[in-house]
């Protein structure tokens, strides 16, 4: 199988080949594990027979013994949803490691003076010791909140992000938060996002969304923001990685909308409180913020739509879709924005497409990117031959179907072994995944982009982002270093061996 594929390096897998490949890769597992993993691996078969509702199994516990790339509920809440809210202090409540090793790693950019009025990249922790586990940490938490408010008086509120031990020893962080909130006269939000909850970071998103619903929206004397206007929108699920939300925001503002809130990249508590008054919620990361969008739809009657700001084709589509919710002035504005940027984007495509055309990409990321970035690659003439979610649910895979071509590999919670085998066999020209996968593939000589934090580049959203995206992909793929991966003495050894044989 492997040999057969090597021969046709440039062509795509057929369906039979894709199935054979999956079977081959599964071979190594014991029978029970094979049966389980088989449900998570599949390929798109939308080509013939029209609508396909086939879906892989997702959002299930990872198999013990395999290498998974998933995170935990704490990562979903503190790292993703709450962390970027810059004017609140997020306490990593529990032992020191969880907060320290996740500190500032996600590159959620923000404007502000860190340590004075913004706290995004700082690590606040209650640093649990043995005695806190034995005697409980509630008193420590209360003291900590008091001290924090004294040291950082410009904070707008505090959130308590629980780590595993808090749930295990049964501390009552809700009661402490309530009394501390009264004491410092600011919101204190207890978040029950202990890492052991759920199967991945996905439940952490949900818990964080619920805590925003309960402690931010329903708060008394909250939400005294600017007068609501007819063109108010909120950006939900954009975490401003490398400045993503900013490059999205300018497009919306240019077409005449007023962006009153950014959730949660470069976001503030006041912006969140303002959100129930907007006219439309714009949802970028469906997975992490659909819960709060649904809640606002149910409670405040605010419609929400998903949009995609990767690549000019999808941006134009999304701008028109957003504009369709407003009057003609916005619709005209959208057309103007599209017309203004189209020539610039054409220049970008003209420059990079010849260098990237026909290249194959395999993705394995989380949230919205496994399906959303496909459009951007296609704009550059590249083809996505495999994609998968770390922590997607069924609705994510349903949404993926419309973006992928026939026989594209789909893998849910792919294990280290499976991903490596897929890459070895399919031989993509580029792999887009996270930092945990990066060095394996680079050592294998496969060009790699880190698609969680844009490999310390970005932004990739919006028109400005696409230019950077195209440049980065070219820089990685056509880098001369990939030809120098095998050291000369090994190359020599191989040819000698071949000659002998």
């Amino acid at each position, binding site marked *: 199988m492997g040999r057969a594929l090597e021969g046709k390096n440039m062509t795509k897998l057929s369906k039979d080949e894709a199935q054979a490949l999956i079977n081959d890769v599964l071979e190594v597992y014991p029978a029970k594990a094979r049966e389980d993993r088989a449900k998570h691996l599949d390929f798109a078969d939308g080509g013939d027979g029209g609508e396909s509702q086939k879906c892989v199994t997702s959002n299930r516990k990872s198999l013990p013994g395999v290498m998974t790339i998933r995170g935990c509920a704490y990562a979903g809440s503190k790292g993703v949803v709450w962390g970027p809210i810059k004017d609140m202090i997020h306490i990593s409540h529990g032992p020191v490691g969880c907060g320290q090793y996740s500190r500032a790693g996600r590159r959620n950019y923000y404007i502000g003076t860190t340590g004075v009025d913004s706290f995004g990249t700082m690590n606040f922790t209650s640093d649990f010791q043995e005695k806190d586990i034995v005697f409980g940490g509630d008193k420590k938490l209360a003291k900590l909140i008091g001290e924090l408010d004294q040291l950082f008086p410009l904070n707008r509120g505090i959130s308590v992000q629980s780590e595993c031990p808090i749930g295990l020893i049964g501390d009552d962080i809700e009661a402490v938060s309530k009394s501390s909130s009264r004491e410092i006269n600011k919101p204190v939000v207890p978040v029950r996002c202990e890492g052991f909850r759920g199967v991945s970071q996905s439940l952490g998103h949900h818990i964080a969304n619920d805590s925003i619903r309960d402690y931010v929206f329903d708060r008394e004397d909250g939400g005294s923001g600017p007068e609501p206007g007819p063109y108010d929108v909120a950006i939900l699920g954009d975490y401003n990685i490398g400045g993503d939300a900013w490059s999205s925001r300018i497009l919306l503002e240019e077409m005449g909308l007023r962006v009153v809130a950014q959730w949660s990249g470069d976001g503030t508590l006041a912006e969140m409180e303002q959100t129930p008054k907007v006219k439309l919620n714009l949802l970028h990361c469906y997975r992490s913020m659909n819960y709060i969008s649904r809640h606002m739809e149910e409670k405040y009657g605010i419609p929400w739509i998903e949009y995609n700001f990767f690549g000019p084709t999808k941006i134009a589509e999304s701008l028109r879709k957003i504009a369709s919710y407003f009057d003609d002035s916005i619709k005209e504005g959208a057309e103007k924005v599209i017309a203004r940027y189209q020539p610039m984007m054409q220049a970008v495509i003209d420059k990079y497409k010849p260098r990237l055309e026909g290249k194959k990409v395999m993705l394995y990321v989380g949230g919205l990117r496994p399906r959303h970035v496909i459009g951007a690659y296609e704009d550059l003439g590249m083809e996505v031959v495999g994609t998968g979610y770390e922590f997607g649910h069924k609705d994510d895979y*349903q949404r993926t179907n419309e973006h992928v071509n026939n026989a594209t590999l789909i893998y849910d919670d792919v294990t280290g072994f499976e991903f490596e085998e897929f890459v070895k066999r399919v031989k993509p020209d580029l792999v887009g995944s996270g930092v945990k996968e990066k060095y394996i593939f680079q050592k294998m000589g496969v060009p790699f982009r880190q698609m969680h934090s844009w490999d310390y580049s970005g932004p990739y959203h919006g028109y400005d982002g696409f230019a950077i995206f195209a440049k980065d992909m070219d820089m990685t793929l056509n880098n001369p270093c990939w030809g120098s991966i095998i050291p000369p003495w090994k190359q020599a050894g191989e040819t000698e061996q071949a000659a002998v044989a």
Partner: protein
Amino acid sequence: MANIIISQAVDGSLTFYMPKKDLEEKVQSLEFTQADKWGGELKLASGQSYYIDPIIEPRLPKSLRARRMD
């Protein structure tokens, strides 16, 4: 009894979501779908079935309480 959310899927069908179990399934059939009587037995694509007390047709998405039938 468990909290669930019924919402409209992209293709117009209903989706059943149980936050506690992180269970998301397509609704295959709902017993009553009239404007003044909506609810009853709810069959999921996975084969499980739940019961929600009939109410007047709500605006979706809607959080409801459901009981397991099997």
